[in-house]
């Protein structure tokens, strides 16, 4: 059932299209049944669609959405369905009829349903109230700032770096000059798999024996990454490393458009050098196990590993302009 799997990064789109698709299917089935003269009463159709949406949100989406959010979606979809069933006076009457029939007890069956409802509704609401009054201890939600504002300068291995002006010394063209356009052209393809552009060209394959300059530094950065970083950030830089299960939340996913893709390279340099302990308060420095890499790596190694992360994910670092 591979095709049913929620694909990381595409999940919101997938969810919206799946929901839209199923509503479309409902509409078609409804239309077909009406044509065939076997139309479902709007009362039941409305309730059915609403229950379907609730079940979808509860069981399909992972990680699970909290109840409060599902309650909001439930109210919104309930309003939408209400507008649908009460589109015209006739439709509204049709929708109301089953409820009124039960209230009036127009037949023995309806009387039975009325008696059952009279018992079940107070019990259900009482039970619901009991559950919400029962002390329960869910994990508290703590919202941290994922990308806090960086300082103007940072001091690594005794050298001060002005984050606005410093450049990655390894992001260079064949002449040894800083050249972002040159290096951007040599990163992996932004297609499924994010593969290198040409495995037989020393300009694109860091492992080519003839690789020189930028692309060779990428390999050196990768070597550092796979000796230090992949334990948490994962072999595919997606935050699903060997020990991701021990984290809360799981480590940063660099293949997501919300991390390194929207940051300046110097910001990443600062984050890597100073680690969790170097974060300002809003970044929860007490909870982050991100090592201050200046304790383990040289400045050159940090620049190389940052460059490797951009190469491997196929993102361009954000520029200042």
């Amino acid at each position, binding site marked *: 059932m591979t095709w049913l*799997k929620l*694909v990381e990064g595409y999940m919101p789109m997938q969810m919206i299209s799946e929901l839209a698709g199923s509503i479309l299917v409902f509409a078609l089935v409804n239309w077909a049944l009406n044509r065939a003269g076997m139309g479902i009463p709007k009362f039941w159709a409305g309730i059915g669609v609403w229950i379907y949406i609730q079940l979808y949100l509860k069981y399909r989406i992972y990680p699970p959405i909290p109840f409060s959010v599902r309650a909001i979606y439930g109210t919104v979809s309930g309003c939408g369905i209400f507008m649908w069933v009460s589109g015209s006076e006739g439709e509204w009457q049709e929708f109301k009829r089953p409820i009124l029939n039960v209230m*009036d007890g127009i037949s023995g069956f309806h009387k039975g349903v009325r008696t059952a409802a009279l018992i079940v*509704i*107070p019990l259900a*609401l009482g039970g619901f109230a009991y559950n919400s009054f029962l002390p329960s201890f869910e994990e508290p939600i703590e919202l941290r700032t994922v990308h806090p504002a960086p300082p103007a300068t940072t001091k690594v291995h005794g050298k001060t770096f002005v984050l606005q002006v410093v450049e990655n010394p390894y992001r260079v063209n064949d002449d040894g000059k800083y050249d972002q356009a040159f290096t951007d052209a040599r990163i992996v393809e932004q297609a499924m798999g994010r593969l290198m552009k040409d495995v037989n060209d020393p300009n694109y394959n860091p492992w080519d024996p003839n690789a020189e300059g930028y692309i060779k530094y990428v390999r050196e950065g990768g070597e550092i990454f*796979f000796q230090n970083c992949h334990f948490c950030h994962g*072999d595919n830089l997606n935050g699903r490393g060997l020990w991701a*299960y021990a984290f809360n939340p799981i480590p940063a996913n660099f293949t997501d458009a919300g991390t390194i893709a929207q940051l300046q390279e110097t910001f990443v340099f600062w984050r890597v050098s100073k680690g969790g302990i170097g974060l300002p308060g809003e970044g929860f420095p007490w909870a982050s196990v991100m090592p201050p890499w200046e304790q383990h790596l040289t400045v050159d190694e940090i620049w190389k590993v940052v460059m490797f992360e951009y190469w491997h994910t196929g993102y361009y670092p954000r520029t200042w302009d």
Partner: protein
Amino acid sequence: MSKSRYGINVARWGVCLGFSVLLGFLGLPLSSMAQEDLPEGFKQQGLPSPPPAEQIEAGKRVYFTKCVWCHGVEGAGDGPGAVRLWPRPRNFNAGTFKIRHTASGQLPLIDLDLLQTVTHGLPGSAMPSWEGILTEQQRKDVLAFVTTQLVQDRSWQDEEFEEFFVLELEKLAPKEGTPESIKRGSELVVEKKCIECHGLEGRGDGNAFNLKDDWGFSIQPADWHKCWNFRGSRQDPYNVKNIFRTFSTGLNGTPMPSFADNTSVDERWDIANYVNSLCEREQEIKAPQGTVTDETALTFSTSQPLGIDPLTDKPKSNFVVPSKFVEGDLPTDENDERWNLIPRRWIAMGGQITHKPRNFVNRIDDMWVRALYNETHIEFMFRWDDRTKSIQEDEVDWDPTEVNLEDYGVEEQAPQGTTFEEDPFHQESIAAKQKDGYAVYNDGVAFQFPIKWQELPAPRKPRYFWGDERFAADITKWTADGTLGVYEGTGWDQDFTEVDFQEEVEVVKAEWANGQWTVIVKRPLKGDYDEVAYLEQGKYIPMVFFAWDGHNGDVGRKMAVSAFYYLVMEPPIPMSTYIYPGLITVGIVIIEGWVLGRRANRRKDKGQA
């Protein structure tokens, strides 16, 4: 396509026929021929056709983007990532693969076994699941490259030497995991000598440090209690078929043999059912010394598996550690019924790699915790799997409060040596090379609370790693030499300060048995407010767990560590919980009566009008 397969079959039959004639002439019994020798549950299958050159080229591009970093340029399992990994990345050259549907010693099926490995990854190792990252085509392409270019000593097209006896897993209906089957399995694992390596209770403690793989690297028997770490679990850890497959085909390159020849299919299902039942479930089930009574077998067969988190393929974490109030004295051992008042919590642990010396090879990856409290004390029961009981033999040179142990020779291993011979730094290599001649430290467990957590500006906490300058941590640490202490920590590199609380804490029980530690620690709820955590009912108290495996060289900062958890001492249920829902129910009955009455009156009015 069908034509070429037909061609291969003709060729195969030709070879077979030729051989049989030859053997017949030589007077050798025909029963030595493969067809007759097939173990129960296997069928013979032809050789696969070679992949087209374009596919190999496409696979090369995948390999050099994704795989080379660990598996190396020549596929010898010696990429830059290899030096800090255990288990090591696979060396493809010899064509030795662990997880297969094929008989022992044979090559795996590319489009089934290897594709599943790439798709689902190998849990418990660094090999991730590549599903959703590489398309199915890309995964097949990379296998075409690996199997033709990097597997050098053997070939899937070698008609002379290769044959494929394939376990017909899809055709064999699994035997239901009934209590009888589980009980029989528990007897068979003794009879078939599984327990010699996997241990009496299946925690992999039977022969923990003498086993080596084909390359000489140390290898440890699987812990049956953590099926989510089974390499062949295929992101479906509680599926008994995975165990049946491994047991039937063995793990090539490791001491794990195939049992296809000396067990019937029926016996294999019984063993697989038993091994599967040992994997941890919601309910803690003990079969001491591996003895399964009828009652235990029934509990095994009916208990619910743990929920598996699809993001990590490990059990789902709940970061709240509940503690319940009990009247009177707290339990004195692990068998006290009152422990069952609360669910046990699974504490996920990773290696400490924030500060030196880092722990890249953590042997302890989880722990189970329960907590109970009374008016004056709280008691924690920690249980974790550790294949070896480690107690340092010589007197420890340093004081329990010292944390910077570099001066005593406790240093981080440098990343070097991609072969067993070249690797002097990994503890497990040293262990495999010289069984007795390496440093063993104390096993241990510790937990930390913030001191004066009531005053922390939420959500501020002392740093997870022994607090920080501004906010100190209260650390309770037990080591296997019997030391239990409460310390104040003010930073990862700051020596602990002993707190005047030592006499108040107590090790109620500390026992290692069959690969599992049980440690019960009791401490008062309250002490000096400024020096120790002052534990209160109904509050979220941040908590971090630490664990050391002495045989892994864990000591000082080299250990396993968890994320932040919250201890909650659940207060008794207040009366309002019962009163308000009752009032609400009565209120709704009144409203119902009013609505129906109004409706009936309106109808009556209408009727009269």
